[in-house]
């Protein structure tokens, strides 16, 4: 178990965790689309406040949640800088050589940064509050109408489940191999970027070999337990769309509508 990162499930019990994954998937989709329809700062701030409240309800500690956002901070910073220095709208606030900062650019930079953060936060909240298997089940259900046009909804969901399931396994395996190579004198922190990248070769090769071996073993294990695709396959945990799920979805829609109108 290593550091937590974007998209990891955070297993506590909360009203958000208890929602049907389909409701959460749809709500997230609504949220993401809605974000791009909001064009006022007030609207965006309103939606942001609603999301903060939602995170609080989900019982994910604020610090943990903020750590989820760390990987995108670079992109956010880049966006802000780009807008601040290259936009020529509004009053000039600051001038230094060819660099000019305008109020419009500052405003736009902040607006876009907030939009990106909200985008990532909503996806992060979805994966943090939904077990990977439930998520895949939800996706399968939502995609199942497409089965009519021969879309392999079950297979896609199964691949996702397996991929998600094996992220921590591969992570652990990578840690172990890193340890084994470190014990043989490998150093992953010294030298420039090229030397550091090269130092990972002794980790990446065994990791890849191991992943293929694992895939083979998994396929054998699945077959020997009678897996033969989605046809007629039932589920241990049936998804149930309750009134609370409909309410949650309606609430999301409402918040986004208010945000758009503000």
């Amino acid at each position, binding site marked *: 178990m290593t550091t937590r990162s974007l998209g990891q499930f955070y297993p506590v019990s909360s009203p958000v965790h208890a929602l049907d994954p389909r409701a959460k998937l749809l709500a997230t989709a609504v949220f993401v689309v809605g974000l791009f329809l909001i064009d006022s700062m007030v609207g965006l701030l309103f939606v942001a406040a609603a999301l903060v409240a939602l995170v609080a309800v989900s019982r994910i500690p604020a610090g943990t949640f903020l750590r989820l956002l760390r990987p995108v901070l670079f992109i956010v910073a880049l966006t802000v800088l780009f807008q601040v220095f290259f936009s020529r709208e509004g009053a000039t606030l600051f001038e230094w050589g060819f660099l000019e900062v305008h109020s419009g650019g500052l405003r736009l930079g902040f607006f876009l940064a907030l939009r990106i953060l909200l985008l990532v936060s909503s996806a992060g909240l979805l994966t943090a509050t939904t077990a990977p298997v439930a998520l895949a089940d939800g996706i399968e259900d939502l995609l199942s109408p497409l089965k009519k046009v021969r879309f392999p909804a079950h297979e896609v969901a199964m691949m996702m489940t397996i991929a998600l399931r094996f992220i921590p396994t591969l992570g652990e395996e990578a840690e172990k191999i890193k340890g084994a190579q*470190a*014990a*043989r*004198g490998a150093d992953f922190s010294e030298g420039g970027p090229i030397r550091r990248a090269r130092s990972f070769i002794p980790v990446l090769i*065994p990791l890849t070999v191991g992943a293929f071996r694992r895939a083979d073993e998994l396929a054998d294990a699945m077959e020997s337990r009678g897996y033969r695709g989605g046809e007629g396959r039932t589920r241990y945990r049936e998804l149930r769309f309750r009134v609370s799920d409909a309410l949650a979805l309606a609430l999301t829609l409402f918040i986004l509508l208010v945000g758009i109108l503000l």
Partner: protein
Amino acid sequence: MKLELRDVRYVYAPGTPFEVEALKGVSVVVEQGEVLAIVGGTGSGKSTLVQHMNLLLVPTSGEVLVDGVDATTLKKSELRRRVGLVFQFPESALFAPTVEEDVAFAPRQLGLDEEEVRERVLESLRALGAGDLAARSPFGLSGGEKRRAAIAGVLAMRPEVLVLDEPTAGLDPATREDLLNLILSLRESGVSVVLVSHDLDEVAEVADRVCALHEGRVSTVGTAAEVFYGDPALAPATVRVASLLRGSRPGMGNPVRSQETLDALRALQGT
């Protein structure tokens, strides 16, 4: 060298819901030239413990001493050369196109010249009875051959303490026998060996001292005879047989190795 762990505590993933205290204050000494076996159930902290011996894991509290010196003050590369750690299933870290290249990885990291590297590679492959594998691809070997190559990769650093985490798990009897003989010959040449194992019979054969872990704490430590006769229920087969007989024949002593047990039984027959 003498390696000492003093009151080592280790917490995985502190401050998260996954927080686990794997070691709860473990003190243990590895003396120069001894074979110390570490036994204990799964999850007792054995693998976590051995990763502290070359500071791959740094104790949450407590210290690791090398000949009385705080190991954190030593250079990491130096410490890892002196304390060679072989992970469980070490063959999963083989990566080079040939066994020779793979075994050469560690000595090359030490900055030795090519001649010295070559010499060490052949020496450690031979020590593991794998001299004929040098030119083969590690991915085309059998399980036992892979294990030999992987252990040779650590031995090539000529460590002063060799730490083996379940080196015989899943091995065929012949490779296991070779490995145990390697452990004994290393001890012969003054190298200390730490052997983590679930196989009490092999522990009985090679260990000078045994340290038993239970839920992150040392439950017993002492000579093999002390530990195994202290709780014969958890002892290897020869000790269980000897313990049964000792009730009526105290004269047979505390044999631990199968040869000792055999000798003791013969002596009983004679009387």
